[in-house]
């Protein structure tokens, strides 16, 4: 049973590697395109995905390959990178979907200050990385914050999808725009489920084999959704028409 679970997990490793590399490429490509567009939103989303890929990949590698002080230092660094990614994501969601709501900027700013203070306090008290296999406080903070932000992002994507479907009837957008918001929403839901599975495993004891089997698939589907949303290939453009 254990051997078959390990075999299953090893089969899924390529999915994890591809998802992390893919996410890294999405992030870098968005940042490079943002240099041309001069748009803040794409820059923020680019950094969010780039830092998330570094954080996820770095944490996975350090837990497998490193030990002792080096593992601790890399662990703290990766947790910090993960928190930075969440901050970029929060501002990115605000910029794309609710830029006209100034009060949200204050709320996000306050949240970022609180996150920085909490991170610093936990770093000083050893609450970022655990050495006994338990989940340290910072892991929970990043997970819960991630769920809140991805949940918000998913709701905004689906609202944008519904709005664009109405705009399509007025001839203001083309079908491709509607499909892209659908993909963006699906991508956010996959990522949210990814995080919720981790929480369910640690809180209600969801079988680790199930979580480790589903996670790479969800990560892969999520990044695929991102790619198709930001950089729709020619066949998608032909099938659904270019965004108006």
């Amino acid at each position, binding site marked *: 049973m254990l051997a078959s679970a390990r075999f299953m997990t090893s089969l899924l490793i390529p999915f994890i590697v591809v998802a992390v590399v893919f996410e890294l490429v999405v992030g870098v490509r*968005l940042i490079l*395109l943002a240099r*041309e*567009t001069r*748009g803040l*939103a*794409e820059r923020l*989303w680019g950094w969010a995905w780039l830092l998330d890929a570094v954080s996820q990949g770095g944490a996975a590698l350090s837990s497998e390959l490193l030990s002792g002080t080096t593992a601790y230092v890399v662990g703290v660094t990766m947790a910090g990178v993960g928190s930075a990614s969440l901050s970029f994501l929060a501002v990115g969601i605000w*910029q*794309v*979907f609710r*830029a*006209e709501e100034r009060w949200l900027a204050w709320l996000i700013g306050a949240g970022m200050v609180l996150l920085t203070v909490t991170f610093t306090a936990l770093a000083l008290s050893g609450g970022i990385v655990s050495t006994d296999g338990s989940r340290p406080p910072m892991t929970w903070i990043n997970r819960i914050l991630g769920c809140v932000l991805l949940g918000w992002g998913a709701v*905004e994507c689906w609202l*944008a999808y*519904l*709005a*664009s*479907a*109405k*705009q399509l*009837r*007025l*001839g*203001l*957008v083309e079908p491709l*725009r509607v499909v*892209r*918001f659908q993909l963006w929403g699906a991508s956010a839901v996959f990522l949210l489920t990814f995080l919720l599975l981790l929480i369910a495993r640690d809180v209600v004891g969801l079988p680790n084999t199930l979580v480790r089997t589903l996670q790479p698939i969800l990560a892969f589907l999520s990044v695929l959704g991102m790619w198709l*949303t*930001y*950089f729709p290939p020619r066949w998608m453009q032909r099938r659904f028409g*270019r*965004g108006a």
Partner: protein
Amino acid sequence: MAGESDAFEIACEVILSRTSLTGPQVRGSVRLALKEGGLRAKTVSTRQLLAVVERLMPERLVAQGVAFDEARRVCDEVATRLEAYTDPVQDIGPGSMLERLDRAREKG
């Protein structure tokens, strides 16, 4: 009311001056038409509002008791005012980032 787009304010101003509807009735009607078109008063652009005024607004005004012919005339006048206005703000909102990315990809 501060915070709504220029296009929204222009449409409300014209409808208010050409019908017997009250300010809240006018703003409410325009908001409902925008919602029906998947748009928001704070971010709607001239181009987007023109489509709403042409396709959805007459029906909204009729629902408020304005005669059909009068509603059509008022909407034509709103459209004329909007067309004459140079909106400093282009389409904003969730789709603008995707549009910018598409343009940059085409150039590259």
